């Protein structure tokens, strides 16, 4: 079953009098439970693709659908709801709220989704075991290592069981050992729990953890697109 369906996706940024074409007609399908790595150099448009899929910015043209919901027709409020319910983010800089403990960083995502107070489902409990952060949940981000912070960020991203986990250079700030650990965790989440993952990276070694690698250059997918 197709989780993400992108056809003819275009994004143009207007900078003063200049138009910058970040995406030039992307076609991409991601199946449910698939782990896809999007690889490309700086300026290839992979971050723009990440932002559009995450509902952080609207596309200029084309269609983008997650679980059949077309993002191109969504209002700001609907894209906010999409981020709340359908998409989870993992960032390069972790982006944990510094004043909250690890547990509260996860809880605030549940609160935003309207799930505060409800017991987490069994799948999330299993994910927490995989992430191995139970002993660090009462610590604030500054007391956690980079690898631990990123594992908390992953827990926060999946706590509301999103259809799509978007990871933007998730190992960009980590050393090799922690990078391998985080990538292994993402792979376990994908294989054991069936979490669909789309990971942006410029690192071929990180991309190798994915089921499939999509190459981008100059706002285009340069691989042959999968069958529609």
């Amino acid at each position, binding site marked *: 079953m197709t989780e993400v369906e992108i056809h003819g996706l275009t994004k143009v940024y207007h900078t003063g009098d200049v138009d910058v074409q970040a995406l030039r007609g992307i076609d991409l399908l991601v199946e449910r439970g698939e782990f896809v790595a999007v690889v490309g150099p700086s300026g290839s448009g992979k971050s723009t693709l990440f932002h559009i899929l995450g509902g952080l910015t609207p596309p200029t043209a084309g269609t983008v659908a997650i679980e059949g919901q077309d993002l191109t027709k969504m209002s700001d409020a609907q894209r*906010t709801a999409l981020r709340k319910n359908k998409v989870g*983010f993992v*960032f390069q800089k972790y982006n944990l709220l510094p004043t909250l403990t690890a547990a509260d960083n996860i809880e605030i*995502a549940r609160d*935003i989704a309207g799930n505060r107070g409800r017991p987490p489902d069994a799948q999330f409990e299993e994910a927490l075991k995989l992430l191995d952060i139970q002993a660090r949940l009462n610590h604030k981000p500054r007391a956690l290592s980079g690898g631990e912070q990123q594992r908390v960020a992953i827990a926060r991203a999946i706590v509301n069981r999103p259809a799509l986990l978007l990871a933007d250079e998730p190992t960009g700030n980590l050393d090799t050992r922690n990078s391998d650990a985080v990538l292994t965790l993402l792979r376990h989440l994908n294989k054991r729990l069936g979490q669909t993952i789309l990971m942006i990276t410029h690192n071929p070694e990180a991309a190798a953890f994915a089921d499939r690698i999509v190459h981008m250059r100059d706002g285009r997918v340069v691989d042959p697109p999968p069958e529609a």
Partner: protein
Amino acid sequence: MRTLLSVVAIGVGVTMILTLAGVSRGMLNGMAERSRGTGADIMIQPPDSSVIGFTGTMSEKFVDLVRKQDHVALATGTLMQPVHFLDYVTGIHLDEFSAITGGLHYLEGGPFRDPSDLLVDEIYARAHNLHAGDMVDMGHKWRVCGVIEQGKLSRAFADLGSLQDLFSSTGKISVVWLKLDDPANIPTVKAALEQKLEGYKIVPMDEVVSLFSVDNVPYLKPFTRVVIALAAFFGFLMVSLSMYTAVLERTREIGILKALGASPGYIVGLLLRETVVLAVAGTVVGIAMTYGTREIMAVFVPNMPQAIVPDWYPVAAAIAVGGSLIGAVYPGLKAANQDAIEALAYD
């Protein structure tokens, strides 16, 4: 640290308001206490006088007249002579005044010996660093002949005759103070004097003391209002700017919340809840700091005593919470509605 600074900034605004309100109250309380310290039972003033402003004059002969009234044990006249803004020298007949007040307690020096001699109370002496023997210029060069314990009507005293001559008020006084044989006779004496001295203000001391409020002091009410309004305005600005800065510094966190799917309403609600907590904490800190300002005022400006004013706490709290909320709403709304990608990129 940022949270602590916000709380302190709010606290400073609260302290400013409470200190100014407290100084107004403290000065009035001091005046009331000093009036009570005369030991008199009844005060008589001329018809055109303000009851607690001690303005207007009348003939010194009234003292002899009322002295003959039944139940009057002691009577003395005083002249309140303004010399500086908020500074008075009170002309007294030292013997009569000492008798009616129960005696002056000299901390330094002694009674008047010369027409230019001045007695000051301990607060005035501390505020102006004066000791017995020092010269002080209050429009006229006075020699401090003694320092007395505070609480007896005024902070500076001169011989009545000398003061009258100096200010061309020969034979004039502002107030006659009466001590009765029994305080129970106050209504009787008051009624009798009102018949004899038609139009004159014959006021029992309990009533005089109760009149010492902001509402009854000429110019003090509008002055206090203006000062407190300014304090409230600057307190409000301080609190608002503090919150504005605090929210701007949290732009990245707001970006994270937006990425998690938080709506602008959720973000603003969260900021406002935190703001209220900060404002309440700031109010508590501000109230605590007023005890510090009171001690500082007592050391450096002892003639401006600061009262603790619990009835002003709700007003200060309302200004702190209101100022914080208004300060937080605009940047909060701005941040909640800004582009999530830009907010996430904020450092």
